[in-house]
């Protein structure tokens, strides 16, 4: 059966299961079970969708059967479906981690529905082909993330949540404003249609202004310099599983939105817009590096590594050539996987040692050997040591940078890897090596349970790196569309 609604399932299924969970507030076991079931079914749908996109090209649907620019279009191209699949996969593993790490009190107060709602928003934002609808999905994922960040109501959580909310309220207001401006100028909301119409009028100055505003809006979500300052504080507040979800998924939505708009809409004044993107991304990398070295707190170190990765990915995007673009996509998915793994791992370290301050750790290698190795492999993946997952992305991004003639910026990107290595290895050298310190009593069983999702993630990331050859056709499809918007436009408008 040719199922035309396939592409909505990864959005709808988590949504539906989240709603069902609302009826089961007190039954934690049922909640856990249904969450996993819902996610696995969503994953199956997403995988099926990948296959369909691979064989039949871009999948589109215009909701309510209205013709394309008038209804809301959903568009699954390879980039979006890959991100959707990765997000579901990561959510499954973090939910597994949550079973032991989040605690029953939070589970009883709608933790799982909030996770599923957030995934709904994320997948929706990745899939939608309508700029205002993207705003709505951003709000879905944001409000769910508000719930998650504050859930538990600890003193520090509350304090940081206020800041997190404020920043996002501002960026949401700016998002609405920017959509309004764009609508005023081109009179449409459908993204393919916007692209076609901008091409028609040749991106005059006002559209470039709007392009810059979009960059700022998404830059706030995506933690781009100079808009990232809110992130390190806010992300350090919620419990580890939530931080893992945020770190792996949330900024990526901002990155996706920048990538989408800067390859689909605003491609007629690249010398201005993409140069700005390039400068900001390099500055993001540098500022991330400063932060990654400045702290002795595990969470902060890894959080600043999120920021570095944001810069690296957007640097790749800003090159607007094939190597840079497919490198950025490779790196984006790699970073989602590896950050999820890293956050779970440091979550385990923190729960084992009872502190997140590096100075109070030492000698874990003697008592938690497998954790040490897992962490080490993850770090090498993070840095991009071949054949692990970060390598191909970085290689292609560097190639793209050189090909586009951005020599020095590219060298900075390369050097940033050494800072990433230093910052992450410091954790290894301090926490795992050295004289063992006295550990608080902890539950060996939950430690083993928590190692499972971490191990799975690390294995997946290794496979991702080693089997690059199999992934290349998919990445090529994804970057092709980004570089040839006409494929996207035709798929949506000419039906």
């Amino acid at each position, binding site marked *: 059966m040719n*199922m*035309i609604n396939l592409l909505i399932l990864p959005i*709808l299924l988590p949504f539906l299961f989240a709603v069902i969970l609302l*009826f089961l*507030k007190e039954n934690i076991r049922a909640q856990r079970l249904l969450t996993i079931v819902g996610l696995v079914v969503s994953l199956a749908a997403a995988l099926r969708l990948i296959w369909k996109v691979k064989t039949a090209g871009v999948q589109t649907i215009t*909701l309510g059967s209205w013709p394309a620019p008038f209804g809301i279009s959903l568009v699954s191209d390879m980039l979006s479906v890959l991100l959707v699949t990765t997000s579901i996969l990561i959510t499954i593993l973090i939910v597994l981690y949550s079973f032991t790490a989040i605690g029953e009190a939070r589970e009883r107060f709608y933790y799982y529905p909030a996770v599923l709602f957030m995934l709904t928003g994320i997948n929706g934002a990745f899939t939608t082909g309508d700029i205002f609808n993207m705003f709505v999905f951003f709000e879905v994922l944001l409000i769910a993330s508000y719930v998650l960040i504050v859930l538990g109501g600890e003193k520090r959580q509350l304090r940081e949540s206020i800041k997190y909310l404020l920043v996002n309220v501002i960026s949401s207001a700016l998002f609405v404003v920017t959509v309004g401006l764009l609508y005023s100028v081109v009179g449409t909301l459908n993204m393919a249609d916007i692209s076609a119409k901008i091409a028609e009028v040749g991106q005059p100055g006002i559209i470039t202004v709007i392009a810059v505003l979009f960059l700022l809006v998404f830059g706030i979500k995506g933690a781009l310099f100079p808009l990232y300052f809110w992130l390190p504080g806010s992300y350090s507040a919620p419990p580890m599983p939530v931080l893992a979800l945020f770190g792996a998924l949330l900024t990526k939505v901002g990155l996706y939105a920048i990538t989408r708009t800067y390859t689909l809409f605003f491609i007629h004044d690249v010398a201005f817009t993409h140069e700005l993107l390039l400068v900001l991304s390099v500055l993001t990398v540098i500022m991330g590096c400063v932060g990654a070295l400045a702290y002795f707190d595990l969470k902060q170190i890894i959080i600043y590594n999120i920021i570095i990765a944001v810069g690296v990915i957007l640097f790749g995007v800003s090159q607007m050539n094939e190597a840079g673009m497919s490198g950025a996509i490779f790196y984006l998915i790699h970073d989602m996987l590896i950050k999820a793994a890293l956050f779970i791992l440091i979550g385990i370290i923190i729960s084992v040692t009872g502190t997140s301050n590096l100075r109070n750790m030492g000698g874990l290698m003697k008592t938690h050997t497998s954790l040490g190795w897992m962490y080490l492999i993850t770090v090498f993946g993070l840095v991009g040591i071949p054949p692990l997952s970060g390598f191909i992305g970085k290689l292609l991004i560097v190639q793209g940078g050189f090909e586009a003639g951005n020599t020095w910026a590219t060298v900075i990107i390369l050097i940033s890897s050494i800072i990433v290595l230093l910052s992450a290895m410091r954790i290894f050298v301090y926490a795992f090596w050295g004289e063992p310190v006295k550990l608080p009593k902890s539950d060996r069983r939950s430690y083993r349970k928590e190692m499972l999702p971490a191990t799975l993630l690390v294995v997946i990331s290794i496979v991702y790196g080693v089997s690059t050859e199999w992934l290349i056709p998919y990445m090529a499809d994804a970057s092709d569309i980004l570089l040839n918007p006409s494929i996207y436009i035709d798929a949506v408008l000419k039906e």
Partner: protein
Amino acid sequence: MKVNDVVLQTAAKVVFFIILLFSIFIFFAGHYTPGGGFVGGLLATGAIALLLLAYDLRTVQQLLPFNFMIVVAIGLLLSIGMASGSIIFNVPFFTHAFDDFYLPLFGATSLHTAMIFDAGVYLVVIGAAMTIIQAIGGDS
């Protein structure tokens, strides 16, 4: 209990029903004239909020013994269910259908699946707004 409380409470009861009826009216009118699920739901919430001002939280909870979170969930299910109907018919998600029917008492009526969706909206708005109001009011 003071006298003007009694007056207020009586008045509130009356106004409550008036507003509730008005909200239902506005809900049904929405497809053709200003109104719809949102405004309808919000008005209904306003009506309940009025009761809250007149009585206290506990009384209102006894008057309206709903778990509003469940109301939210039902509303959402209703909306999702309507939209998902199109999956079964393999037409794009959210495709509506409408037709004119002859119903006894109502005469010729246009029935639109959008109404079902809007009913979901109505319920969600009441449920969510009331959850918030009750939670804030009940916070001790």
